[in-house]
């Protein structure tokens, strides 16, 4: 899960070295905390939140495959 977010986000941003992904694993739910450079925030969120929503949807599918619920939190 962490790897997936890391891969997608690093491919999108200008400063991949500033991308930080933390995974907090619960029993049924995994929370993924994402931090990026302030200037890259727009790239990760996208127009009307489209990119962020797409990342969440793909994570959801990945969760279905693995039998887990995943929540993505984008932190500033």
């Amino acid at each position: 899960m962490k790897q997936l977010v890391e891969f997608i986000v690093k491919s999108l941003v200008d400063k991949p070295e500033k991308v930080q992904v933390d995974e907090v694993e619960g029993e049924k739910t995994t929370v993924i905390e994402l931090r990026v450079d302030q200037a890259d925030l727009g790239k990760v969120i996208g127009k009307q939140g489209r990119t962020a929503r797409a990342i969440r949807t793909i994570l959801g599918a990945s969760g279905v495959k693995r039998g887990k619920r995943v929540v993505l939190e984008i932190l500033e």
Partner: protein
Amino acid sequence: MKYYEIECYDVEEGVTKFLNENKIPREFISFEIIEQGSKGILGFGKKLSKVMIKFDEFEYLKRRSKVVLHDILEKAGFEEFQIETKEDKPRFILNILTPDSKILVGKFAQTLNAIQEILDRILNIESYPEIEILVDVEGYRERVTKHLSEKAINAVESAKRTGKVQKLPPMVTIIRKDIHKFVNEISGVRTESSGTGDIKTIFIVPDKNNKKRGENA
């Protein structure tokens, strides 16, 4: 094919710098020197060389899209899949063959839509307006687009006959885009969509004056 012209004193250095700045692998370009410059003697008579760089963006996007899609699927935990590609320049279709097709298409095709969205962003597809890189899962997109196009034809007929706005079923962005395009090629009607988020509904609006609009048939 995309062409760039750069100016530099040292051709090799200039080309390398260009490739690094634009994140293009060398194997997708070729270049020729249009104007030979000079490094000068003791700083005198220095003249820039003009170099024309030819970038095969289609080949580049073909390769890159397949690698990125493969990585996304693998990192998402999908193991059994194959990516079948179909080239129909300027279109390139990546069809995912997998027993997990149900998950990858998702409810209302939202997952497929999301994969396309992310791939578009990663490839920065807006920079290549004439190229289309399409993701599909077991030919789903093709099937649904065909089915909905047929529905759209019926709705267009009704709209023209009754003069009333017709509604199509809700669709995700990737499918809606194709249906919009399809309907707008038919004269006498235009499309509008409403809704928020990924899924919107298309309305087929008949023209008040069919003759005026008929010219873009």
